[in-house]
């Protein structure tokens, strides 16, 4: 009887999520033409992914870029998130509600749309940023930020951080609000300054949240696709400097590589499986380090 209640949900969830995820891993051992994969090839796709000079160089490039993406995000987005949270939970400040609302606005917007907006702003010829820089006499900084392989990835990462900083901010706020007031009071009576209260009282108690934020960022970053697609394109230009696991997967498994345009779905499934293994290893490591059960949080951001 109860099974009947749960059955529709189980059916949809199994058919369109659980099964395809598992089956895609199985398909990484197959090859075929077009959309049907019927030829068992063992580890052939993985051998090509790691040993074929052309494919593996693209793979390692995307993999490396993704770590840079993650590193800058942790450094910029999550420290800003922590800073905002500390300010917004600290001493009374007029307009807290307003700032909270504004910081979170971009989280609700489509990554594609914000990517386009920033692409327009950053346009070297007539973009608002360079017009603004020229107006305030900083002409020398008016550069093609998205066209230079040395800056493109960092700029894309900053736009992504601009969009998502509201998530860590709100999570840190929730964490900070749960710390009992008397802990601060006793620390303050002991004469501890703002910095010591932060380092010795707040930060240690926030460690579980730091763990969750790290895992969410990690999963989100290794699934990122939209921001690069909007700002630079599916090829990760200029010269693959913004290519990530997401765009690499899209080209190999879904859209097909230029100039052929036919997807290599077996190889794509192998890329997806490798991504999954990386994510899984990362989550396990984070669990070890923070000693918290944070796995449940991962899916939340993995779909952006």
């Amino acid at each position, binding site marked *: 009887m*109860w*099974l009947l*209640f*749960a059955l529709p*949900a189980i059916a*949809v*969830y199994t*058919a*369109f*999520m659980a*099964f*395809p*995820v598992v*089956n895609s*891993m199985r398909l990484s051992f197959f090859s075929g033409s077009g*959309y049907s*994969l019927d030829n068992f090839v063992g580890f052939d796709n993985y051998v090509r992914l790691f040993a074929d000079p052309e494919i593996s160089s693209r793979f390692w490039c995307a993999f490396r870029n993704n770590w840079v993406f993650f590193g800058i995000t942790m450094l910029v987005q999550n420290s800003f998130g922590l*800073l905002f949270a500390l*300010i917004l939970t600290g001493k009374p*400040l007029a*307009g807290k509600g*307003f*700032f909270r609302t*504004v*910081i*979170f*606005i971009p989280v*609700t917007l*489509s990554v*594609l*749309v*914000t990517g*386009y907006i920033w692409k327009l702003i950053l346009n070297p010829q*007539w973009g608002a940023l360079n017009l603004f820089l020229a107006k305030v006499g900083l002409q020398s900084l008016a550069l093609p930020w998205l066209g230079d392989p040395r800056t493109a990835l960092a700029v894309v990462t900053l736009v992504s951080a*601009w969009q998502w900083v509201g*998530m860590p901010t709100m999570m840190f706020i929730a964490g900070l609000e749960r710390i009992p*007031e008397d802990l601060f009071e006793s620390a303050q009576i002991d004469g501890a300054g*703002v910095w010591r209260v932060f380092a010795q009282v707040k930060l240690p108690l926030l460690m*579980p949240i730091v763990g*969750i934020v790290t895992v*969410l960022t990690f999963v989100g970053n290794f*699934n990122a696709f939209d921001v690069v*697609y909007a700002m630079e394109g599916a090829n990760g230009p200029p010269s693959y400097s913004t290519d990530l696991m997401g765009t690499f997967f*899209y080209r190999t*498994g*879904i859209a097909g590589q230029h100039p052929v345009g036919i997807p290599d*779905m077996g190889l794509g499934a192998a890329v*997806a499986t490798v*991504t*999954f293994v990386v*994510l899984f290893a990362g989550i396990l490591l984070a669990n070890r380090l923070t000693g*918290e059960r*944070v*796995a449940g*949080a*991962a*899916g*939340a951001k*993995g*779909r952006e």
Partner: protein
Amino acid sequence: MAKHGVRDRSAPLKYLVLGFWSLLVIFPLWTMVVNSFKFKNDIYLDPFGPPMRVNLEGYKTVFENSPFPRYFLNSFAVTVISLALILFLGSLAAYACVRWNSRASRWIYLFFVAGLTVPIKIGSVNLMQIMIGLGLLDKTASVVPVYVAMGLPIAVYALYEFIRGLPNELTEAALIDGTGPFRIYRSIVMPLVKPALATVAIFNLVPIWNDLWFPLIFIRKDDQRTLILGVTRLFGEYQTDWSKILAVLSLSCVPVIILYLAMAKQFIAGLTAGAVKG
């Protein structure tokens, strides 16, 4: 710990940080909206100020002579249907998992919760094949079952916790009266879990409305596109029609911004919900 009268000496610095960031958030959105009402030359002359002369051409072309109203309706239908199915199927399953005391129900619950950890994108290759097999490729409807599957883990997880927290007496009294379990679900459990349903709805609303990935890989046919997929065409076709490009970009995010500003608290709670519980 209200310390009235004590001046916070760090306040100016705090306002500087928060004010700078607020500008950084508002400025791009402001530029987008004001420039969508300007003539092309006026954009170059004064890209940041409000429009000197209002130009509605961009909006007019979008509404009268473009596929965007169609895309908007497609997205609207996809979002509403997916959310309705997530809430209905998810609450049924959660209710069953709570009331059904057996090892099987425990496993079913864990099966759903396991889905919280796995990004569904990993299964894209096989999902493509499934859509081809079902004849859904190139149809707007193709994304619905995927969104429902992707929303069910959080729905079951959140609603399970919530329903389990309800006092048992409420349903037991009805059971003794001989009320069937579906009636109990519909007339007793559902009204009580409304707040949790709202959280689950918002949590899923934003990613579904904003999703690019699945429409991009499933749908190529023009009239089947969702709004966000439609936006990807902007730069190819209307290369120089700025008022149109900006009108479309504004239209695609202003509804969400208004909805968000009207219910900021619920949005923030909903979107961070899955994360904070951990």
